[in-house]
């Protein structure tokens, strides 16, 4: 992996002065992913927080070529760019090696952009899709998505007198991408930055379609103090709520095995979105959530052992 000294010399894809919230996690994700590439990158973003906070006309925070098309089509848009690159390369009109990266939030990736993502991955374009998963539609005010964890309070599936937030467990998009038999799939988070950069480096070094699911704590939607973003990412991994692992040509490798798996309540109690779970009558739900996290973790360990 490139050391900090090397990384500090690389081109920063984002200038300062973008309009993301203080403590937002995705500028870190964008920087770490793009700076992991030794070749120039062309970036596509789905509609969402990232796009609206970095490209308010007449300003752009991007130092790389950047394209935004619509909400649900970042993967298809980038597949068109990659195809044009191949045509131009074949015709001798382009000679530089370029890496292609798409960023989409969980709304634009798990939900509305799911088909576009699946299609692009199945077609085998040489690109990296990075989902910055902050567990809800944060750009429009914390609406639930397929990535929202069970029990979380969102504005479209709120906790109330008879409901306890989201009723369903989250969709496991990383595993769905593994089922596409991609050469490289990884799950990472901010907080464990070296792990994230190493995975991005590996993705760029792998030809073909790659997918990274990066948990991005959202201080607004998760409701915690802005300084805690990295700590929140680490807590998600340390509790195994968000296991850090990679799947290389079908072979699983867990990249962080907490020496002492922290209880999930440590993660939940640090965020306002789970506050209602700590009412006395919700103890059963907390237990169910822990059970689900444990089960998914055990399944992951078994998959790694099989490899």
């Amino acid at each position, binding site marked *: 992996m490139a050391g900090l000294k090397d990384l500090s010399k690389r081109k920063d894809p984002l200038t300062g002065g973008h309009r993301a919230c203080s403590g937002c996690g995705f500028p870190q994700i964008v920087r770490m992913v793009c700076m992991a590439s030794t070749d120039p*990158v*062309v970036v596509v973003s789905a509609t969402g927080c990232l796009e609206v906070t970095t490209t308010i*006309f007449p300003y752009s925070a991007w130092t790389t070529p950047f*394209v935004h098309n619509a909400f649900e089509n970042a993967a*298809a*848009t980038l*597949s068109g*760019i990659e195809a044009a690159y191949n045509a131009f390369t074949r015709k001798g009109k382009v000679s530089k090696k370029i890496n292609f990266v798409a960023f989409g939030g969980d709304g634009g990736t798990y939900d509305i952009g799911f088909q576009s993502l699946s299609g692009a991955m199945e077609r085998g374009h040489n690109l990296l899709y990075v989902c910055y998963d902050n567990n809800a539609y944060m750009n429009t005010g914390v609406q639930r998505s397929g990535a929202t964890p069970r029990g979380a309070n969102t504005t479209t599936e709120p906790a109330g007198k008879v409901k306890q937030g989201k009723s369903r467990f989250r969709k496991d998009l990383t595993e769905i991408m593994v089922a596409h038999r991609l050469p490289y799939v990884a799950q990472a988070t901010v907080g464990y930055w070296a792990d994230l950069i190493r995975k991005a480096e590996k993705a760029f070094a792998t030809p073909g379609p790659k997918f990274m699911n990066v948990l991005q704590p959202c201080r607004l939607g998760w409701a915690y103090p802005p300084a805690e973003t990295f700590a929140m990412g680490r807590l998600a991994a340390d509790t195994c709520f968000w296991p850090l692992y990679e799947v290389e040509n079908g072979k699983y490798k867990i990249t962080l095995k907490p020496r002492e798996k922290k209880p999930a309540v440590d993660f939940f109690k640090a965020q306002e979105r789970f506050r209602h779970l700590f009412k006395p009558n919700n103890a059963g739900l907390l237990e169910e959530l822990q059970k689900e996290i444990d089960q998914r973790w055990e399944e992951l360990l078994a998959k790694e052992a099989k490899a």
Partner: protein
Amino acid sequence: MVTLAKTGNEVMAEAMRQIDPDVVAAYPITPATEVVMIFAQFVADGLVGTEYIPVESEHSAMSACVGAATTGARVMTGTSSQGLALMYEILPIASALRLPIIMCEVNRALSGPINIHCDHSDTMGCRDFGWLQIFSENAQEAYDNVIQAVRIAEDPRVMLPTMVTTDGFIISHCMEKVEVLEDKVAKDYVGEKKSPYSVLDVDKPVTIGALDLTDYYFEHKMPVIQAMKDARQVILEAGKDFGKRFGRPYGFFEKYKLDDAEFAIVALGSTCGTARVAIDELREKGIKAGMLKLRLFRPFPAEEIAEALSQVPNIAVLDRSDSFNAQGGPVFTEVRSAMYNRNAKIINYVYGLGGRDINVAQIKEVFCQLGRADKMPMVNYLGVRE
């Protein structure tokens, strides 16, 4: 120039082969599927240098086209009906970003009820999305229009996406005699694409598709409005040059026995072929019938249409779709608006929805009714059972 027997779909694919675009992204849909199938075979046989993306939906087809076009690539696609409707969201993005994507669009009725046959509801549904729309009467025009569309769309005065339409099954699947240009001649006419920027130019990074709020959006729509106006001149130049080189000149429309006509119809697409026969038969009986065949619907050449119809007292506008606005079809409302302050009686006939046949007798009946246009309703429905 060689004369071939080909269907509308086949000649559109043939034009695409000669244009040899950098990228084609497309998805199959009846009755446009063959355009994609034939082109895919060209790719498989190495007859084109195109990067072909067999996408998983029309939404992704248009999305990939937009992405590809931001590199400066020449990009094409083909679709119809529901497929076009699935692209609707991305169509105005393509025009706002000034990406001259070319689409072979085969007109087919929109669901529901589901139907696979021709009407113009799909194309009319996106008439206000900033795309040029060129209609074809037959396979020959479909071919000629696709070749011209590339040059028109990519002209620096235009830089707007363009769709060339044929009528589903009537043109797309009927075999006709078509004169096809030699490859080199076609390529010479089309020329090389020039783009003011490319997102692959990593040394000159550009941001495309920025968030544009109240303080800029309006200003950024104005150049599209202007380009649509300027496109008229470019279309005339391209059509004139096409005529000079190949003997088949094109303009905004074609006047058929219109100059001395007392009764005229205005129509789009394949129906104009049927109308010619009706007009010829009426002329033999001494009835001064004529036609204005529109080729261009976007931009809408309002002034020129009004001028062309200025001497005709009785006009029937034929629409192969309804606007569901309780006052007729889209061609009618636009022609009537163009004729505001002119002294003509103009009525509307909506016909042929969902592929319902229109025949010579019906068109003759329209002319007959034009003889008492004063007593006719403003909007009439032709060929529908009570």
